[in-house]
């Protein structure tokens, strides 16, 4: 279908973006548009105004700053795939991006858009959660930082207020001996996940340290599997420990089924992914 009519506003700065948002109650921010325009074409969204921020060049930067990798809101999925800063510091993001949707979509879709939309099946919110990321949001009162753990508040819901713009996300670049794992199960290449898992852990002498397992498409928001992580923390996982972690995972997740994939199947698949992730983290 075609989208409902709207007014198109091109913002040249964050200040102008905030002014547009303040002036129009039903405005939406347009970044890459790869989810928003699809939702508008299906009339699942019908904003009165689109505020196009894609011309704000400052938001395209990838840089390192006091031990963090800082990604501007307009960094595209294809940029995550090809950036040497990402490859060196947080290869998890490059791996996730390379399996996200399809090349033509990765050429336009942005990390800021993905995080601000907070689709429960989206890949990057879970990655940022696994990486202990912090979201930067700018409003009339200035810029504040929101930890990923408090940012995602439900399906398509975040801690952003109506008159704030997500401007960047920053993730600590881990020290040596850090491992990552990215696992995603989907019916077809590029589809949304049935279940997915982004994981980060330290590894010292075969023992996992402070592992973080962030599941996506397993709840109404990305979820940290704290109980499973507690079982594995400090351990050199053998088959018995991994089974205990999979049992503990049932305390962490309470998946909701979808057509073609029941809640029970999702729970089973989450355990499959946890086993794969642990094998890769210690491998």
């Amino acid at each position, binding site marked *: 279908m075609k989208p409902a*009519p709207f007014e198109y506003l091109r913002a040249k700065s964050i200040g102008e973006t905030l002014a547009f948002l303040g002036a129009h109650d039903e405005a939406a921010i347009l970044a890459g548009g*790869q989810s928003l325009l*699809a939702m508008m074409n299906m009339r699942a969204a019908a904003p009165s105004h689109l505020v196009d921020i894609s011309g704000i060049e400052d938001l395209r930067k990838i840089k390192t700053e006091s031990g963090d990798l800082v990604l501007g809101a307009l960094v595209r999925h294809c940029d995550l795939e090809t950036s040497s800063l990402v490859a060196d510091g947080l290869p998890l993001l490059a791996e996730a991006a390379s399996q996200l949707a399809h090349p033509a979509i990765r050429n336009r879709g942005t990390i800021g858009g993905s995080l601000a939309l907070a689709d429960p099946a989206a890949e990057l919110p879970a990655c940022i959660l696994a990486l202990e990321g912090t979201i930067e949001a700018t409003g009339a009162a200035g810029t504040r930082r929101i930890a990923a753990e408090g940012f995602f508040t439900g399906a398509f819901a975040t801690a952003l207020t109506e008159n704030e713009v997500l401007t960047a996300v920053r993730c600590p670049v881990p020290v040596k001996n850090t491992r990552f794992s990215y696992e995603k199960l989907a019916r077809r290449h590029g589809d949304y996940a049935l279940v997915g898992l982004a994981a980060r852990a330290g590894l010292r002498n075969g023992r996992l340290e402070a592992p973080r397992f962030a599941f996506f498409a397993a709840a109404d928001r990305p979820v940290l599997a704290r109980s499973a992580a507690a079982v594995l923390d400090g351990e050199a996982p053998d088959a018995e420990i991994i089974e205990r972690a999979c049992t503990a995972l049932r305390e962490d997740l309470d998946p909701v089924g979808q057509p073609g994939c029941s809640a029970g199947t999702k729970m089973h698949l989450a355990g499959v992914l946890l086993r794969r992730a642990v094998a890769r983290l210690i491998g």
Partner: protein
Amino acid sequence: MASEIEIRLTVNGEPVVERVEARLSLVDFLREKLHLTGSHVGCEHGVCGACTVLVDGEIVRGCLTLAAQADGSSVTSIEGASDSGEIADLQAAFHERNALQCGFCTPAMLLSADALLKRNPAPSREDIRLWLSGNYCRCTGYHAIVDAVASVAEVRRNNSI
């Protein structure tokens, strides 16, 4: 009122200035305003890939890009890529290997395949399938398409040595 906007862009090498509705997608702009009907409209939510065109040399979904967003850009559709001869080898291989039947997906399939070969001159068959997973074909079962792309990859590699 900004529900209409004037855009200036280059389409297949020619400068274009048009006044468009803000909600007009890039693929509808090409088809309905410029009568370039080689780009097709399928699902209109980014799944089927039939609307693939190039914006500043990169493949994009024409249905998930507003014409307004293409202001200042250089757009290439299948008509431009075909007329320039740059994908003639892919077109010939698709023809020779029966890599199309109804042809609806073909223009986008050709542009996507060319983008792959420019990025990865030596793709495996799995690489080709992964890359083209965003372009649906309901006729061929994909096998002949993968054959065609793999054969062109080999010829281009040999020619570049």
